[in-house]
């Protein structure tokens, strides 16, 4: 009996030694995500210390579901038992501002200015609150380009070389000229109404909302005018962003020339496309789209572990390098990405072996997201919904704008227009 007890004691002591680094912390790590993009990166590249279970709370984005679930959890953060507290949550650029007050300052997690010196400045700007504190970090930067079909480019433009194609698509005028050529060959330039949306709105001159008033930016109006023209000329296929028909247009046998997006777009959202079919160029205008930031939730019972995770997943250059190699992402380290851009051996199979980093690199430094508001997501969703009717010829432009304003007021009563 005594032997048994002593054996048990020794075993217990050994176990506690193993877990010594995060010994005084909780054993359950609750992480809020809306899809498995970061989840797979985390499971592939981070070793969770023994004795800690990771509880993924994956709530889909649609209908504001993710934010609602996250809001409820964060509001109950103080009263929740240790194992139920949110430890890490992810946010997107379109509403990051909303969660500034609920995330730890990264300086409090022991992350220094030196640690983040190599990151793209805009990824820090977006998460900097009014007092200049940084509330979250990202492993990716999202400079975006025009992703086009090589075979269709060869057929109509006579070349699929990204540099030559870029010359033919260097501004909106030439973009329209190519659209006309494509139409003559029975090819749609873009799949639907919302494809060029981000190229315009990422270059807006004002914020969507200023002092509680919804703005009508010239860039948005330019998107509307262009899309109306494309629709009337039959240069698009009339699909909506993320709809099954829109994805189906990526298929090998479809006749749609191009899509717009950053690295996460072709590495994560173009599953319907065939590897080797595509290439990327800068397109008519530089822009960025999206991005995911990792925030440490205030009130977490795993502070040291969370800090370590954020450091490893967003700062550790080895991890960032591996993510580029294995997941074709564009990671948030200027030096790592410059290294890839100058590496002739690097290429992505989906893009037919093209080195996409060298195409997107210059653009990454120019991204400016100072105009973000917490209303951007609703504005984006609702302006697209409202304008689809206008593009379809159901309503006139004024009615479409009114429908947009009305639904904005329903969702955000504090706004006016």
């Amino acid at each position: 009996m005594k032997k048994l007890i002593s054996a048990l004691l020794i075993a217990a002591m050994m176990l506690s030694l193993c877990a010594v680094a995060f010994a005084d912390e909780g054993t359950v790590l609750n992480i809020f995500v809306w899809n498995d993009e970061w989840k797979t990166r985390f499971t592939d590249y981070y070793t969770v210390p023994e004795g800690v279970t990771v509880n993924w709370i994956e709530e889909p984005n649609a209908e504001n579901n993710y934010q609602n679930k996250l809001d409820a959890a964060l509001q109950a953060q103080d009263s929740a038992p240790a194992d139920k507290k949110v430890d890490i949550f992810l946010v997107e650029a379109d509403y990051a501002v909303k969660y500034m007050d609920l995330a730890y300052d990264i300086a409090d997690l022991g992350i220094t200015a030196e640690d983040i010196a190599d990151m793209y400045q805009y990824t820090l700007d977006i998460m900097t609150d009014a007092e200049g504190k940084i509330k979250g970090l990202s492993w990716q930067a999202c400079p975006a380009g025009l992703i086009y079909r090589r075979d269709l480019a060869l057929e109509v433009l006579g070349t699929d070389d990204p540099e030559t194609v870029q010359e033919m698509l260097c501004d909106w005028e030439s973009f329209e000229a190519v659209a006309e050529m494509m139409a003559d060959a029975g090819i749609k330039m873009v799949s639907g109404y919302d494809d060029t949306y981000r190229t315009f709105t990422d270059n807006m001159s004002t914020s969507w909302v200023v002092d509680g008033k919804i703005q009508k930016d010239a860039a948005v109006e330019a998107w509307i005018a262009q899309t109306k023209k494309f629709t009337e000329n039959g240069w698009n296929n009339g699909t909506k962003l993320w709809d099954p028909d829109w994805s189906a247009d990526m298929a090998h046998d479809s006749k749609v020339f191009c899509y717009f997006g950053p690295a996460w777009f072709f590495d994560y959202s173009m599953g319907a496309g065939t590897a080797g079919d595509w290439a990327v160029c800068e397109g008519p205008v530089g822009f960025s789209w999206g991005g995911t930031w990792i925030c440490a939730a205030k009130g977490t019972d795993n502070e040291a572990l969370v800090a370590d995770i954020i450091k490893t997943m967003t700062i550790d250059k080895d991890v960032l390098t591996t993510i580029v190699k294995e997941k074709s992402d564009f990671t948030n380290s200027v030096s790592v990405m410059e290294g890839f851009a100058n590496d002739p051996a690097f290429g992505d199979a989906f893009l037919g072996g093209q080195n996409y980093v060298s195409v997107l690199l210059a653009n990454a430094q120019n991204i400016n997201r100072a105009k973000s508001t917490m209303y951007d997501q609703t504005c984006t969703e609702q302006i697209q919904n409202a304008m689809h009717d206008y593009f379809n010829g159901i309503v006139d432009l004024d009615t479409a704008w009114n429908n947009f304003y009305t639904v904005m007021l329903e969702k955000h009563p504090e706004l006016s227009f």
Partner: protein
Amino acid sequence: MSKLTRKRKSVSYAKWGYIFLIPFFATFAVFTLIPLVKTFYYSFFEYYFEGGLKAVGPNFVGIQNFVDIFTRYDLLKFISNTAVMWLIGFVPQLVISMLLAVWFTDLTLKIKGQAFFKTVIYLPNMIMASAFAMLFFALFSDRGPVNSVLNSVGIDSVRFLSYTGTVRGLVGSMNFMMWFGNTTIILMAGVMGIDNSMFEAAQIDGANAWDTFWRITVPMIKPILSYMLITSMIGGLQMFDVPQILTNGVGNPNRESMTLIMLLNNYISKSKNYGMGGALSVILFVITAVISMFMFNYLNKDSRQMQKQRQLASMKGGNK
């Protein structure tokens, strides 16, 4: 002795009745009554969360929410949307269900395999409304199976989900398909409750099927018809999941397939706007109450009249 009897007389078991009712009233109070009262209460307040997190209010604003809902938010449009989509589903539902109920119960027709048909027509009701809407969304999408079939017989694709008429039609037909089986079974119960001798008498008097239907079946199942009308109307007012899923929560085109509860969802889903949500719910409550009261009175009027006639008849000494 007399004392004992009196004591025994005063023994009451009523308190057990009340005790056994406590669980119901407790649940009712917690889950229905208190929320109901709070809804009324908050409808007079400005109370929402900016972006879903930062509370604004509650500030008392009187009837401002009710004024806003008609001026700023155009409630009448959504009332008419809801009514139109309900009618598109209800009218065919009534006609088809009535027809099926009469056929199934008609002894002279002797329809075979009734159990099978009853099961089949009831089946759509077993599918979750949202799943049903998803199915229709896929079937009727711009390049969905329905359009492929149309194309293969030489008809151009129809963009079903881009036009008001087709979207409303789809919503209506889904509601029709989901509910006509249920209605048929209720109406059958009504028709089977009619004394068969009535039909026989009518037959002997030489009435044809049309007359029998309008003079005997319809008047006799009037209470069931009214019940069906009220429940369907209230269900129609609460129409949500089918148009919500079919239009991705947008209620397009031109917000003309947006129902009242979808508007409520817009108030609640992003900003948790309990003030406006409360006001809308109160309006819905009033509409439902008025409809129900109207129908209830109408029904009772009939039975009251019948009672009066009977009383009159017995006073005259007839009917002995």
